[in-house]
């Protein structure tokens, strides 16, 4: 019977094309109207370590969370079989290379010892020999799994012979084998796969033809499995969908928002955003010139923030993108921007810390770093996005807020969003507005820091007949250094009092979104990437009679304490649960700081892997039904 949705893991060594497999499948599925979400998990490594895609496909919606167990485990190598032994669900399917059937756990050098030991213990407990063949037999016997062996060597040899491809390049077609095997299981039509390969290998018709032959050879070898894991006919009515990562949608948002200067120093998982922007540094469409956007790879993160500030002083919309370690280096510049009321945007993709921590894994543990980094007191705005759609519009709004209130804006995202590919509806740009704030035409008597207004109208460096000064030291209305105590009080207060103005003027939808039923029995509170999985968890729990709501916090600083107090007051505090990808669940502490209301129930995950639907549902049930205070989640490879 066709399924409404389907989960899969595509795994293999880093550099072997796991990501290509996912991209080709995601586009082909989107082409047929399916919704897709795919998280990419990988080591800080170029080639060889285990990487995998965790993907969910839906026939009825654009999915927003990942879930275990999975229906398909497609393994490029032996390590994938061992690593994901726990992830396969009842009557799932395993696709594997018959060439690794006799591979023993101990023979896999790329696997970390600590993981190997954990898997070895698990196999011992289950009474399974640490050999691929025995693991597969166990999965067949205990879970009724369909075990599908394909001789990768055989497929590649057939391809080499037919197309006279250099055998040294054979491994490049392994991603095609994975795509093909999954497509056959899903019963996906050949045309959508061909179309997707043609996008992937644009202009290389030979590669499209070769990969279509891989599909043919794989299909011959697994004919009896055709369509065994088929999906329902999609009920989505979209005529167009975007298939993009979080990095990509933020880049698009920035470009639409009028970005003109982007600086960055290479860092995971932020750098891809700048690459995407650089592709579009200048476009001419319908007779309109878009750009130029200068994308500057600087010598370090200090230069990244400082040059972005410099560019902002000329009136160009300017931004930089980084992750925790890079942000730490930017802090002195951030404080200067605060002192000089500079509208600059920092797009901050959190990853696992402290220090280099887990450079390629996700986290939300930098909330306080974003809120409080920098010496002295100054106005800043921190906004967070819950998903790809929000991230697109927020990337634009970050500039609007920055320029309207003349403050640095930190747009807080994370690796889960950055590297997750999703099917996203096309944005509606009729809904988008650009606010540039009060701009002065300058003149001989121009005062950059005019004290007669909370927001002094901005003239830009280069405004005709206008001269202005900036200084990190306390300054007078002209921008010259002044240490006078009364000037200090007026200038300092003016800068900080903007925070109240921001709270007053930003509409509620910029501050938070509240989801779920009106008078909930419980309230889940979170921000950023928690949103998708929390919303899906609420739907699941509702079927069990647990009626909840989700508070997605978007404006994190200045903290909208009145709104949050009001929302929290509607539920008993012991029915409020904060969820975060961190140890400390910082959002609960921030709420406590802002409102005096202490949230005691928390769900934390700090493995670097995203919270999945199954584990969040389970955690919320334990809290709601068994009166547990704190649940720490650990699942994921």
């Amino acid at each position, binding site marked *: 019977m066709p399924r409404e949705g389907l989960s899969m893991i595509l795994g293999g060594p880093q550099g072997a094309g796991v990501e290509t497999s996912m991209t080709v499948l995601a586009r082909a599925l989107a082409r047929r109207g399916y919704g897709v979400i795919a998280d990419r998990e990988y080591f800080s490594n170029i080639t060889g370590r285990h990487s995998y895609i965790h993907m969910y496909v839906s026939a009825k919606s654009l999915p927003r969370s990942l879930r275990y167990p999975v229906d398909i485990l497609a393994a490029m190598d032996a390590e994938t079989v061992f690593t994901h032994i726990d992830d396969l669900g009842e009557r799932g399917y395993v696709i594997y290379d018959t060439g690794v059937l006799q591979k023993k756990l101990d023979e896999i050098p790329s696997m970390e010892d600590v993981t190997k030991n954990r898997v070895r213990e698990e196999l011992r407990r289950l009474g399974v020999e640490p050999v691929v063949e025995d693991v597969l037999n166990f999965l067949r016997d205990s879970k009724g799994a369909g075990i599908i062996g394909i001789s990768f060597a055989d497929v590649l040899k057939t391809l080499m012979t037919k197309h006279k491809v250099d055998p040294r390049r054979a491994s490049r077609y392994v991603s095609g084998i994975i795509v093909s095997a999954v497509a056959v299981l899903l019963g996906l039509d050949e045309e959508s796969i061909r179309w997707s390969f043609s996008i992937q290998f644009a202009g290389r018709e030979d590669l499209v033809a070769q990969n279509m032959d891989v599909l043919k050879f794989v299909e011959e070898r697994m004919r009896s499995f055709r369509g065994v894991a088929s999906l329902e006919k999609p009920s989505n009515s979209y005529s167009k*969908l975007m298939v993009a990562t979080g990095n990509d949608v933020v880049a698009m948002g920035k470009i639409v928002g009028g970005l*003109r200067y982007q600086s960055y120093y290479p860092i995971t998982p932020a750098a891809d955003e700048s690459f995407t922007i650089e592709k579009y540094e200048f476009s001419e469409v319908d007779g309109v010139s878009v750009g130029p956007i200068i994308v500057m790879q600087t010598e370090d993160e200090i230069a990244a923030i400082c040059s972005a500030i410099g560019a902002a002083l*000329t009136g160009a919309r300017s931004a930089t993108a980084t992750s925790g370690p890079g942000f730490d280096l930017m802090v002195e510049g951030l404080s200067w921007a605060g002192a000089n009321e500079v509208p600059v945007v920092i797009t901050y993709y959190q990853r696992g810390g402290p220090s280099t921590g887990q450079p390629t894994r996700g986290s939300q543990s930098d909330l306080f770093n974003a809120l409080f980094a920098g010496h002295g007191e100054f106005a800043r705005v921190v906004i967070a996005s819950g998903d790809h759609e929000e991230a697109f519009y927020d990337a634009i709004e970050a500039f609007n807020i920055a320029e309207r209130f003349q403050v640095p804006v930190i747009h807080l995202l994370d690796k889960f969003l950055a590297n997750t590919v999703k099917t996203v509806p096309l944005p509606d740009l009729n809904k988008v507005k*650009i606010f540039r704030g009060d701009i002065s035409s300058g003149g001989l008597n121009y005062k950059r820091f005019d004290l007669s207004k909370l927001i002094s109208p901005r003239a830009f460096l*280069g405004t005709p007949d206008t001269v202005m000064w900036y200084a990190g030291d306390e300054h007078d209305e002209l921008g010259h250094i002044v240490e006078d105590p009364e000037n200090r009080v007026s200038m300092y207060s003016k800068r900080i009092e903007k925070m109240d103005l921001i709270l007053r003027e930003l509409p509620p939808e910029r501050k938070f979104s509240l989801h779920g039923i009106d008078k909930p029995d419980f309230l889940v509170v979170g921000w950023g990437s928690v949103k998708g999985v929390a919303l899906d968890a609420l739907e699941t729990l509702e079927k069990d009679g647990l009626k909840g709501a989700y508070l997605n916090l978007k404006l994190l600083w200045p903290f909208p304490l009145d709104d949050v107090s009001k929302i929290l007051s509607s539920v008993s505090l012991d029915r409020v649960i904060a969820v975060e990808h961190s140890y400390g669940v910082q959002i609960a502490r921030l709420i406590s700081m802002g409102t005096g209301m202490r949230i005691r129930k928390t769900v934390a995950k700090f493995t670097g892997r995203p919270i999945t639907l199954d584990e969040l549902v389970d955690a919320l049930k334990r809290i709601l039904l068994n009166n547990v205070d704190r649940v720490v989640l650990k699942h994921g490879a």
Partner: protein
Amino acid sequence: MVPRSYKTDLWIDWCPGCGNFGILTAVVKAFEELGLDPSKTVIVSGIGCSSKIPHFVNVNGVHTIHGRAIAFATGIKLANPELTVVVHGGDGDLLGIGAGHFVTLGRRNLDIVVIMHNNGVYGLTKGQASPTLPMGVKTKALVKPNIQQALNPIALAISAGYTFVARGYAFDSEHLKNLIKMAIEHKGAAFIDVLQPCVTFNDVFTAEYYRKRVYKLDEQPEWNPVAEKPEERVEKMIKAIEKSFEWGERIPIGIFYIDKTQSTLEERYSQRIPLYPSIHPAKSNITRDVDKPLIDNNMFEKIFKEYIVDVEHI
């Protein structure tokens, strides 16, 4: 815009006799003689005595953070290449904390002038040794003789890729003014190392010390520092670097090296983006109908077509 004066009327809080006064005089004179439009001119500085200079000059001033003036200046110049951008910093500012930025500007050859107030000490924090103070020297502010080697700013700038490299002396304002004018007119990254006595903390490299020793390269008939053709480049560089190690009884000032063979960063961007720098980031439009984004739904689909899937239900 014709300024009432290229000097502001602020009281200058440098120590009496400070070399910075000579530099300020040279800068103001150079700006005047070039007739720079103050609204199109920006002085960007770091931190320290030298970095207070923007407040004393009646052009746009951006007084930033320690060591980062070049980084700020880079964003300003790239976003609005119409501006004349002059960086001022001390030797600690530019070659200690800011060394990475200093080197990178050379590598980029962006059209910025860097004027280094070189006094061998960190004046505003009471006289610690800077990266240009030779090893073994003990100024009166130091507890013990300097234990670290000095670096050679001229040799560093040339090897980093600056295409105009010169040295001036703070109390020869006329000569320094001419160097500054030439540096501003030069297309590409320009560096001027200015020997600047610190009357309070450096009792070794004093005005007296320099007066006896400095001589002008420009007055040496055999000295030709300009690389006009690519094949002259390495030879001129080596000669200039060799000359930069002359330090002791005689100290050369003047132009060490001019490279006319290299493209500027602005020119490289112009090749990639044809409209740059005539339509630059600071001047390009980002809206239509007052507050709508320049990119509408239709344009969005055309620009980002590689991310967009036309759904075909079968």
